[in-house]
């Protein structure tokens, strides 16, 4: 791997790449991810493109800082503010099935007589009553629209894999036949947020993630290179799946070091 193409910017997934999540706690940093982030801030350009839907960007950054990973709030991209902007631009009146911590992004948006449902809730705030309310609102719409913050099948917590928002979106789609719009990886629209934040063309960027289909496959479909790390939700059986990463590394630090040692080429 002597030459390859130039790598001018990095998009990093957060959960499973920088740290592993633990229910109702800050979680635990992945070895040497803090060094990798510092190194990229000094020697390249880096943004953090996450499907995390539970916290505001400020709280995502603060959590990482508490774990010793120096990520700046302004470099964090999560779906909630992007969804809110999408609602404003398209004059959508959402019913919000989201975490309290991200409600601030929807300030000033009309939520009366909703014409879409925005869904970004899993874990402790999820209940049958809340999903049933979303269901009733959708089934009464002439053209039901469900906007989800990512469509992940599962996310990895230290205690094991946990069902993710994509499953609840599939449940609502089955019962209401709604259109599902994913604003999160692997949608092109969402990856474009990362490209715009870096101010680069896709071919200049590498995306590093633990989710083969969403991070790696999604990035590749947009013309970026996709790097798989063997942390977070990575499973040995990923090798049988129909996406081939441009690089597979044991962890973020190894991926960054390999690319840096090659003169920022891959």
């Amino acid at each position, binding site marked *: 791997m002597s030459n390859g193409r130039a790598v001018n910017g990095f998009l990093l997934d957060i959960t499973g790449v920088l740290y592993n999540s633990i229910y109702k706690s800050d979680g635990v940093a992945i070895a040497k991810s803090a060094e990798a982030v510092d190194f990229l801030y000094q020697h390249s350009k880096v943004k953090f493109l996450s499907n995390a839907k539970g916290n505001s960007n400020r709280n995502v950054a603060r959590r990482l800082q508490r774990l010793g990973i120096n990520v700046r709030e302004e470099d964090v991209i999560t779906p909630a503010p992007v969804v809110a902007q999408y609602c404003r631009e398209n004059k959508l009146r959402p019913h919000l099935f989201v975490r309290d911590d991200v409600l601030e992004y929807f300030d000033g948006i009309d939520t009366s007589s909703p014409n879409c449902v925005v869904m970004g809730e*899993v*874990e*402790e705030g*999820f*209940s*049958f009553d809340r*999903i*049933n309310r979303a*269901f*009733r609102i959708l*089934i009464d719409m002439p053209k039901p629209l469900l906007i989800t913050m990512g469509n992940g*099948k*599962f996310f990895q917590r230290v205690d*094991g*894999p*946990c*069902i*993710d928002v*994509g*499953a*609840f*979106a*599939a*449940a*609502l*789609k*089955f*019962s209401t036949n709604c259109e599902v719009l994913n604003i999160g990886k692997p949608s092109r629209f969402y990856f474009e947020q990362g490209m715009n934040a870096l101010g680069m063309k896709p071919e200049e960027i590498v995306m590093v993630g633990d989710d083969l289909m969403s991070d790696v496959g999604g990035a590749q479909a947009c013309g970026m290179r996709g790097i798989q790390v063997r942390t977070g939700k990575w499973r040995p059986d990923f090798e049988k799946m129909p996406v081939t990463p441009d690089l597979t590394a044991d962890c973020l630090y190894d991926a960054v070091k390999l690319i840096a040692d090659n003169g920022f080429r891959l």
Partner: protein
Amino acid sequence: MSKISAVLIDLSGTLHIEELAIPGAQAALELLRQHVQVKFVTNTTKESQNLLHQRLKSCGFQIEKHEIFTSLSAARDLILKNQYRPYFILDDKAMEDFEGISTEDPNAVVIGLAPEKFNDGIMTEAFRLIKEKNASLIAIHKGRYYQKKDGLHLGPGAYVAGLEYATGVEAKVVGKPEKLFFESALKTLGENIDFSNAVMIGDDVNDDALGAIKVGMRAILVKTGKFRSGDELKVKNVANSFVDAVDMIIENKVEND
């Protein structure tokens, strides 16, 4: 036409509507019993055999409990046949149909209608069993939603679809109109029943009539219960009610579709 030997009879909408029997249905049933074997079949995810039996008795039908075969019975058969040790996501009322079945170290997830259990923790538990321990996914049925007095509610099909999406595993559905359901119900009447000499009587054109026809049975659609105008165009044998359906069978006038 060869003679009918076995008849499967739907309950709600066919023999009775809520607490009222279809007029004349009790006597018609007694008449039918003199000619053929019968079994009572229904899709339910939370009404036990016991509860259904009590309701039929209070409507004046002479029926034994063991003559009722439900989607829960079909699930029980499947569980026993495959030696499943289920993780049940079921209403507590349904659990009496699963007495004696071991649930230790589960190797299957069995889902019915249990709104209070449709939460993140239980869905994650089911997900882990399927994804990490290769547990099978079994759905009592896959209804999209249902009506209650206070409005519409998500049906079990939604939870099943969510787990199918997350795990990539397809659920095995046990209720009507699945082939296995009709097969299992007929098998309780004898090992060598000829499906073409068996009839399904019901008010649901899809789940009862077309489902039975698909497995090679004959079917009579009754114009009671959830019957909707236009349904009669989809099948050959249509009767005004269960009483007329019985006459058609006795007079051997039930055609193959």
